[in-house]
């Protein structure tokens, strides 16, 4: 019985991981086709990736849009989480649902809605528009992780800060924020990762100047089956693993 459960577990894990793992050796292939066995090992696709003016600007764009939207999502998400945690007001649950909506609403719906909203206002095909859209998608992740951090924060400390003469701002920045900083950072990383692998909104909103890595991979697969796509995919997977590791490190229980 136990062995059977283990077997099923391992099979499920393989199902989840294998498709990604299959990509990794291909990116090191010396040949030019999406086939196993590999004709030999080389770094030629990575060299091609880093020499390409198709891929490299996309990588920078991804990192830039990711950082900017993560910063924006954090700027909005942390106060939102703090407010939701502090006060019990009428409509709190509805507000929570609205904030979390981008997590559950289908991406294509969000993308179409954003295009309709941004287009007439000249925000489509702009860096700012894309950052704003990705920030909106990132806010729920920030709110959820910061709320989790706040649930471990002792609210009496805010009273103690007030009794020490600290106004609400000082109390927040000197007493609350240092305690929830790992949660805030984890939320920012989640927001960054969300932006990094977001494809649908980018397809609708990004102009030629804002092409991100997933957008180029999509295009690359359609145009030419070059194994550079596999190098790009491997790089993205590696980046995601790094980010996940960072989150795990941040959310480790404190000393």
């Amino acid at each position: 019985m136990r062995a059977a459960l283990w077997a099923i577990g391992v099979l499920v894990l393989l199902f989840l991981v294998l498709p990604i793992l299959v990509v990794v050796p291909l990116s090191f292939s010396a040949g030019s086709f999406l086939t196993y066995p590999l004709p030999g090992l080389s770094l030629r696709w990575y060299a091609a990736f880093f020499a390409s003016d198709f891929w490299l600007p996309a990588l920078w764009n991804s990192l830039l849009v990711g950082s900017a939207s993560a910063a924006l999502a954090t700027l909005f998400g942390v106060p939102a989480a703090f407010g939701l945690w502090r006060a019990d007001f009428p409509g709190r649950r509805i507000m929570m649902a609205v904030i979390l909506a981008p997590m559950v609403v289908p991406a294509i719906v969000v993308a179409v809605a954003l295009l309709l909203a941004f287009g007439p206002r000249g925000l489509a095909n702009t860096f700012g528009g894309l950052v704003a859209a990705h920030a909106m998608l990132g806010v729920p992740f920030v709110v959820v992780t910061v709320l989790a951090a706040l649930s471990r924060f002792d609210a009496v400390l805010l009273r103690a800060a007030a009794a020490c003469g600290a106004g609400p701002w000082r109390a927040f920045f000197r007493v609350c924020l240092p305690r929830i900083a790992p949660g805030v950072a984890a939320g920012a990383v989640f927001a960054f990762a969300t932006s990094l692998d977001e494809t649908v909104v980018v397809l609708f909103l990004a102009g030629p100047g804002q092409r991100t890595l997933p957008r180029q991979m999509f295009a690359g697969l359609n145009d030419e089956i070059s194994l550079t796509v596999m190098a790009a995919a491997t790089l993205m997977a590696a980046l995601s693993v790094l980010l996940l590791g960072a989150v795990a490190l941040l959310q480790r229980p404190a000393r």
Partner: protein
Amino acid sequence: MDAPLLRFERVSKSYPAAKGTRNPAALAELDLDVARGELLTLLGPSGSGKTTTLMLLAGFEQPDTGRILLEGRDIARLPPHRRGIGVVFQSYALFPHMTVAENVAFPLEARGVPKAERAERVKRALEMVRLPQYGDRRPAQLSGGQQQRVALARAMVFEPPIVLLDEPLGALDKALREEMQLEIRALHQRLGLTMMYVTHDQSEALTLSDRIAVLSGGRLRQIASPRQVYDDPADGFVAAFVGENNRIPAELLELRDGVARLRLADGAEMSARSADALPGGPCVLMVRPERVSLVAADAPGALPATLAEALFQGDHIRLRLMLRSGAEIVAKQPPGAAVPTPGSSVGVAWAAAHARAFRDEAAAR
């Protein structure tokens, strides 16, 4: 005459109740004065209004009506950080990410005290609570008693007009609690600090206080010195809550010049000083166990009783006695006293000056 440092003027507070019900007031028309340099204890069971009083003073709650005057200024609507009152919390509420010195410096930082002066005052405050060498530690590296002292240092480092202490010793074990009681009392006397101390522990209140305010059901029952609260309780609640007391149901026959003539259920008549007993109503006779003496069963004025049990308690012997009326009373005897065997008939007696007649609130309700 000096105006009081702190004055509560007809302060009332009630909390919103569940739908369709009405909560009794958490605090009803409280009038209370605290003199400069005084250590006043708010004593009462949970739900008595003592914590509400403290929260209103600290600014974490707002009164429905009434004024709270600190040094003549109404602070009832000020936010907590503008009140300049020191607070020691039950859970200490030290900032875990700051060192001890940073914790103590925080109120000075919030007030914009220059860095050099801050260090000097932090050092003095830590010396005051006998932790001068602990400035670089984190709160988690300190014992409960040490954390409590840091909380004290943080609450008084900015020299507030009054320091509030919310059951600060609740989390400590008995020996440490008694040590800290003496330490707080010593600090209070040495620095002339005005303190308001909340506790549900009557022996702590007796040890520490200049005056005790006994609260129950959101009302102030009595405010007086520990001795007066113990020896001359204002009503039956105070008599039962502070210290141990025997309750003997009785009937009030006559009340003259503060002396009540009572008849017990077995027909015996005796007098007692009346606090608030009213003729005609049910009343109780209360007498402290240490005031009950054991006499011969046929001694004049003695109440006949049967000894039910004698328990050796170390510093005294505790006797459980059944009166003929069916009431049970407790008497304390010194440890060396000769104690009759359980089951034997004895007499109990006390001086009329040590007995009090109260309205029986439980029966009157």
